[in-house]
């Protein structure tokens, strides 16, 4: 019996190969996207949750009123951690985190750059990063002890036991390896290869007691029995006794478990963060799955009229209703199972590309029981839902009726199918609009006037002896003609590393707390970066030694400070009187997606981290680079020469947006594909069922055109309705999205027209291909059958 049913099911599948393929493929495409998104969401939700004491770990945040708004941020002063430990017995452990640093590790002539940070000894108590060698209690207790990961250990010492071995860090201090960490898992936001104890920083004189310098992250772990609610009230006023400049600033403990997914604050309130994207994508996954499943059901039921005869005959022969129901459900489950297998194939094939796209190391865990349970659940649910209509509807008919063919055929679209088509295309249009607007925004921002010349401009971070030998390096670079202009700055031109609301000038408003970006440049900054002077001159230390306290404003800063005649004005900052020597046009300093903020460029009396070099246009880039590299290696031999092209550093700023765009394009194409599969299937079945009608009409003289129109009209009407529904929705959503960028396009109504036309044409091609085929068919053929 089962064999018999399977046989019919299988032959049915084969007989309608194209149709079965469409149906199975449509479903598996939907299932595949959903699986990918679920894998991703799962990864994100488990991010940084593996720490044993995660419920007790908090990140110390500050909250402060600035210009009437409550700001929240997570950098803290260095002296805060010891104070917390001293004053609050409720806190079990506390550790500072210095931020990412890169050091040169040297062992027996082997030089290696490693990424790591400086922390307090409690760090490994708070976070669960297991040690392979060494004890949590004492690995970070020696001033010159360092903990490294197994990978770094392997790179430095091959297979030899690293414990007790010495290495030279940054070509200056000798360290002893005190512990080896298991490599960090991929789902943590920490990313370090070594940990150095805070005592080292103190010894080097880089620790400070300055409560205004918020530069490190502080983590605390509360005691097991401490209530968060009670303690957060207590710690609120921590700064009152210590911070002279802003004693009213609130200290706020933010649960560490929330930092990855949330941590976006507006006026002191948590307003989401990454979780927004996760919810969005969960929605998309749900919608795509829904569309694919309904599509599957729709196509299955569209065919059920064809199966009516089979049901009638079987009933006439004596088949009980129960068996017929089982047969249809079984067939449908069989089809879903094939789709599920195909899905697994698609997912494993696509996963590496998807990972590259979203920059995550997702993997399909085939040993997970939950995975199989949910997969089986989805298959059975979809199968039963899709099979239930033909199963219960058809098997309930009296055979005399079914055999006479009085049962309704799918000549017209019934309401549920209409709603489905509208729903599918509404989503497709929304996604198409999103794709268009995202690309426009991206293009527009990429083409933004920068205000500086990024071509042939490189920067190199200052390491080792470059600071000491700077003058001779400059002399040689210019002398050998590889570089036409050079300046050292505190940060690359693509990143803002310093700002302040403390600067003073004549005429500054009492309550003005606007942040002003700060850049330092010793010499020839306008020339090197190709800034555009509006007033005054470039910094020129050789000609004017007093330029070490010179300052150049951008136009936004000039407007903010309100100088009538800026040249010669004085700006007090960090205890120095800087005198204005020039004004430059606004240039994109930080994010190209933001509007330009007030910025000042302070002269040689500042501090420096980066060297910018304008390569000589007369030579090829590789010739220039060869010379530059040679000069740096001569004067700073231990360190390999590092550099970055400014234009590629700038291009990297668009990576996130490019990724969003790619994802949207992917989902759009998939949605259109699935929607069109459904439309195609419905159209072809309707055409098939009306074949007799079409034959008669043709015999009576109807043209191919009129018949095509007749068959396509109903569908296109529905797509038109989708356009009407989708346009306001996507307009709202996309404007909302654009609001997250200060520098943005305005959405033009033309975009919606474009999206609508595109969708209608795709739908038209899909439907009319079937309609034309039906209209062209020979009427004699269709009329003589039956």
């Amino acid at each position, binding site marked *: 019996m089962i064999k018999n049913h399977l046989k019919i099911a299988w032959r*049915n599948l084969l007989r309608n190969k194209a149709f079965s393929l469409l149906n199975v493929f449509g479903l598996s495409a939907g299932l595949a996207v959903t699986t990918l998104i679920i894998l991703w969401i799962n990864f994100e939700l488990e991010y940084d949750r593996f720490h044993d004491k995660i419920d007790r770990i908090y990140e110390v945040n500050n909250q402060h009123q600035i210009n009437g708004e409550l700001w929240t941020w997570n950098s803290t002063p260095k002296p805060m951690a010891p104070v917390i430990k001293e004053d609050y017995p409720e806190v079990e452990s506390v550790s500072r985190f210095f931020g990412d640093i890169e050091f040169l590790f040297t062992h027996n002539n082997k030089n290696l750059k490693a990424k790591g940070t400086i922390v307090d000894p409690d760090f490994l108590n708070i976070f669960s990063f297991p040690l392979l060698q060494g004890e949590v209690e004492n690995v970070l207790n020696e001033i010159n002890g360092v903990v490294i990961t197994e990978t770094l250990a392997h790179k430095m010492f091959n297979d030899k036991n690293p414990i007790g071995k010495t290495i030279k860090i940054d070509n200056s201090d000798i360290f002893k390896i005190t512990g080896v960490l298991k490599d960090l898992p991929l789902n943590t936001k920490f990313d370090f290869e070594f940990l150095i104890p805070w005592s080292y920083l103190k010894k080097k004189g880089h620790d400070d007691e300055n409560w205004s310098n918020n530069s490190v992250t502080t983590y605390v772990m509360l005691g097991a029995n401490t209530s968060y609610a009670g303690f957060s009230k207590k710690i609120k006023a921590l700064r009152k006794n210590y911070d002279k400049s802003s004693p009213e600033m609130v200290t706020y403990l933010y649960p560490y478990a929330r930092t990855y997914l949330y941590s976006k604050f507006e006026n002191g309130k948590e307003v989401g963060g990454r979780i927004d994207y996760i919810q969005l994508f969960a929605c998309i996954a749900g919608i795509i799955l829904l569309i694919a499943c309904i599509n599957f059901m729709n196509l299955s039921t569209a065919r059920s009229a064809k199966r009516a005869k089979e049901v009638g005959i*079987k009933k*006439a022969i*004596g088949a009980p209703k129960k068996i017929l129901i089982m047969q249809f459900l079984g067939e449908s489950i069989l089809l879903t199972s094939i789709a599920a297998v195909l899905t697994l194939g698609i997912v494993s094939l696509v996963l590496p590309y998807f990972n590259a796209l979203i920059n995550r190391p997702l993997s399909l865990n085939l040993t997970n029981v939950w995975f199989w349970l949910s997969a089986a659940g989805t298959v059975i649910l979809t199968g039963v839902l899709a099979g239930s209509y033909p199963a219960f509807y058809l098997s309930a008919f009296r055979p005399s009726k079914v*055999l006479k063919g009085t049962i309704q055929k799918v000549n017209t679209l019934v309401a549920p199918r209409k709603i489905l088509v509208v729903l599918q295309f509404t989503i497709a249009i929304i996604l198409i609009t999103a794709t268009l607007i995202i690309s426009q925004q991206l293009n527009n921002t990429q083409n933004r006037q920068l205000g500086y010349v990024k071509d042939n401009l490189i920067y190199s971070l200052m390491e080792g002896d470059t600071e000491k030998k700077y003058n001779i390096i400059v002399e040689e670079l210019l002398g050998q003609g590889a570089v036409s202009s050079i300046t050292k700055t505190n940060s690359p031109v693509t990143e803002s590393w310093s700002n302040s609301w403390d600067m003073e000038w004549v005429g500054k408003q009492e309550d003005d707390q606007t942040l002003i970006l700060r850049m330092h440049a010793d010499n020839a900054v306008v020339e090197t970066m190709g800034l555009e002077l509006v007033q005054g001159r470039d910094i020129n230390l050789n000609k004017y030694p007093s330029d070490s306290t010179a300052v150049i404003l951008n136009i936004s800063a000039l407007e903010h400070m309100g100088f009538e005649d800026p040249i010669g004005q004085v700006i007090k900052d960090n205890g120095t009187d800087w005198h204005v020597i020039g004004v430059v046009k606004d240039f994109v300093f930080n994010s190209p997606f933001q509007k330009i903020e007030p910025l000042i460029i302070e002269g040689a009396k500042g501090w420096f981290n980066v060297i910018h070099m304008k390569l000589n246009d007369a030579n090829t880039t590789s010739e220039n680079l060869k010379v530059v590299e040679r000069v740096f290696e001569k004067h700073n031999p231990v360190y390999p020469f590092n550099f970055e092209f400014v234009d590629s550093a700038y291009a990297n700023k668009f990576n996130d947006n490019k990724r969003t765009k790619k994802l949207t394009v992917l989902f759009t194409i998939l949605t259109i594909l699935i929607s069109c599969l459904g439309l195609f299937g419905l159209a072809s079945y309707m055409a098939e069922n009306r074949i007799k009608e079409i034959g008669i009409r043709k015999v009576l003289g109807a043209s191919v055109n009129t018949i095509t129109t007749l068959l396509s009209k109903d569908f296109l009407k529905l797509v038109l309705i989708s356009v009407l529904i989708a346009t306001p929705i996507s307009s709202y959503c996309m404007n909302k999205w654009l609001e997250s960028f200060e520098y943005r396009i305005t959405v033009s109504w033309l975009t919606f027209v474009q999206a609508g036309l595109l969708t209608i044409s795709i739908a038209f091609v899909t439907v009319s291909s079937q309609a034309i085929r039906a209209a062209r068919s020979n009427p004699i053929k269709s009329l003589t059958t039956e």
Partner: protein
Amino acid sequence: MLLQLNNIFKWVNSGGQRIFLLKDINLEVEEGEFISVMGPSGSGKSTLLNVIGMLDGFDEGEYHFLDESVHNLKEKHRSNLYKEYIGFVFQSYHLLDELTVKENLEMPLLYKKYKGAERKAMVADMLDRFNIVGKKDLFPTQLSGGQQQLVGVARALIANPKLILADEPTGNLNSQQSEEIMALFKKLNEEDGVTIIQVTHSEKNAAYGSRIVNLLDGRKV
């Protein structure tokens, strides 16, 4: 007596009006009879046959089949009854296109829970009897109309029914094919004692039977 219809009425409601499809039908059929139902198109022949075959219900009257009162039976019981005793032959054959001749013949046996070996023997027997062994692996669409109807009759017979109901079994066939099927019916009736009720428009076919029932507007005349 095989079956008895007493005062059978069947109607449909259309626009507030009751349209009678069958009106006061009384019919007794003895085992071994060969009855031909005749009448103009639309007179209710197919309807009557479907009622007798329990493929369709009726609104009033009594229907006794063997010792059972069909009008009082539950759907499931009724379907057991006809599964056991009745075979159908249709004008348009109604074979399952997805199954081969052999598999089509096997179908009714599947629903009666015969064992695999038994089924095989019965199918082989039928193929033999109808001289279609050579066609056993072909699909219905690969057969001529007459051959298809042969398979249709064979399928109706395979489970040894007491009664065969045939609705214009030769309607789609040429005269030679018709004669073959009719001769087959006669042989079944005379040699195997199978009761046959056929609907036909042809006087010639009707002559094969032992009795003629005439219908006009749902009434026996």
